[in-house]
């Protein structure tokens, strides 16, 4: 039938539209960063000056800043999100409380990033400043560490929900078998659950890392915005995302703008790679 043919064509072209959209996004980023790509080439990734006045651009401080914040936030996240997944899927038997806790945790993920940033800037940063003063570190408050802390608040719900899903895939017979042999719940979790679902949990952490990598607003508000390599984890820094957020509308020269878009391109490529890898791992586990 004619209508049916048209209908099928519409559906399939929906699929093609996605191919076009993704390619268009990638190509737009490449073409718009062409003057920076031509001017600096691969050196862009190894130069640490970022000087819009003298038109010297290099990505090193921001790559380091991004890696540092995402790694630290992941380190903070791991024990918490693992605990949540284990507690909700294995230990908590009360379904009502479990549902409630889960909703509360998911609500954290629902808070807009800019509001988490606002809280970080006006409430958390002063507290950290006080602690720094007491410890004898230069009291700044904002910086790599504060940003990592904020980031971990934002990615804990995300990795916890993936972890919970992966843990729930372990067949109940295996657990029952171990318990009937006299294993304690701790031994079941440590000896069976975690090792069997390790791959999935790892995939989940990879995806969370990818998310921390590209998170922008909250980080921009608390990282201190210093375009240099951070001296310690308490000093102000800049991530690739926060740099773009801070400088994009102020970029007057073509080279500056195209360097910022190239940073966006790097961010795009790395996030896409992390994401695909994470999802491939998780898909293999869930099927």
């Amino acid at each position, binding site marked *: 039938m004619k209508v049916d043919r048209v209908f099928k064509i519409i559906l399939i072209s929906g699929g093609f539209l*996605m191919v076009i959209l993704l390619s268009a996004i990638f190509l*737009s980023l490449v073409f718009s960063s062409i003057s920076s790509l031509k001017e600096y080439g691969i050196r862009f990734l190894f130069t640490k000056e970022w000087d819009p006045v003298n038109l010297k651009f290099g990505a090193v401080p921001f790559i380091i800043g991004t890696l540092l914040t995402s790694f630290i936030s992941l380190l903070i996240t791991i024990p918490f999100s693992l605990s949540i997944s284990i507690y909700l899927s294995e230990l908590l038997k009360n379904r009502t409380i479990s549902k409630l*806790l889960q909703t509360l945790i998911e609500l954290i993920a629902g*808070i807009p990033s800019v509001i988490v940033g606002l*809280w970080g800037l006006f409430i958390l940063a002063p507290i950290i400043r006080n602690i720094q003063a007491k410890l004898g570190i230069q009291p700044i408050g904002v910086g790599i560490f504060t940003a990592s802390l904020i980031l971990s608040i934002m990615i804990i719900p995300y990795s916890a929900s993936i972890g919970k899903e992966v843990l729930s895939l372990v067949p109940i017979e295996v657990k029952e078998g171990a318990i009937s042999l006299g294993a304690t719940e701790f031994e079941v979790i440590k000896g069976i659950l975690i090792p069997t679902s390790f791959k999935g949990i790892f995939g989940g952490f990879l995806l969370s890392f990818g998310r921390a990598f*590209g998170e922008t607003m909250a980080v921009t508000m608390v990282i201190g915005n210093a375009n240099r390599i951070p001296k310690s984890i308490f000093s102000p820094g800049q991530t690739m995302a926060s740099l773009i957020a801070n400088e994009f509308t102020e970029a007057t020269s073509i080279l500056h703008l195209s360097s910022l878009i190239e940073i966006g391109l790097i961010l795009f490529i790395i996030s896409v790679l992390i*994401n695909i890898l994470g999802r491939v791992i998780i898909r293999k586990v869930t099927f």
Partner: protein
Amino acid sequence: MNKLDYINKKRVIKDKIFKKFVTILTFISIIPLFLIIYFVSIRGFRYLSLRFITSLPKPMGEAGGGIFNAIIGSFIIVGIAALISIPIGIIVGVFLSEYKETKFSEVVKILIDTLQGIPSIVIGIIGYIWIVKPLKHFSAISGSIALAIMMLPIIIKSTEEILNMVPQEIKEGAIALGAPYYRVVLKILLPYGFVGIFTGILLGISRIMGETAPLLFTAFGNQFLNLNIFKPMSTIPYVIFVYATSPYKEWHNQAFAASIILIIIVLSINLIGRALEKKWKM
């Protein structure tokens, strides 16, 4: 006490410590939710009033003024984003569930995962390159397009998931009765999954309603009430960011008040979506 008893006791104690530890860490994890809502509320409620919601911003440094323009702007920009995103999302979702077995749909699935993983700030750059640059000025529509791209994967995935849950028999029955394929999809599959798809749309909207990064260099902001989608338009998240990072105490306070409004809007859409989700999943 013999040795075996000792070992068993140790194991039990280890088990207990572990459980305590896991429980405590779980409860610590939800503390930030309350801390954020608590502090934003106590700092914002004093400045929240009907006047704040219904009046326009005052010039820099002057006391008073509200965010009426940003509230209207948020709804316009998100509304247009939804109008762009919903039909495309549903089409692609139907495509994925109807053509599950094909290689091409596998590729499309990976692309959608990829799309979801793109940092929001990069989507903002895309909005700038595609719309702002050719038009040579910031505009609400460029923000809507950026937000639509962010909303798309959420709608596609929920549509696909719901349609996959429609019992095969219903479809087969309809086809056996001689119904044309398009009618089966439009009159049977989509109505069957309506609540689920609608849930996906709500969750998508609550997600993009609070997005700021894609709007920084697309919709930008505007101190005045603007209804023209080809001009810069203010949004609540954008106002929060600009006010929070300004040097004015008055604006800081307004950022907190605006945050209360945004939290209420975002979390209530989110909760409605979740409530609906529970209904159809049962």
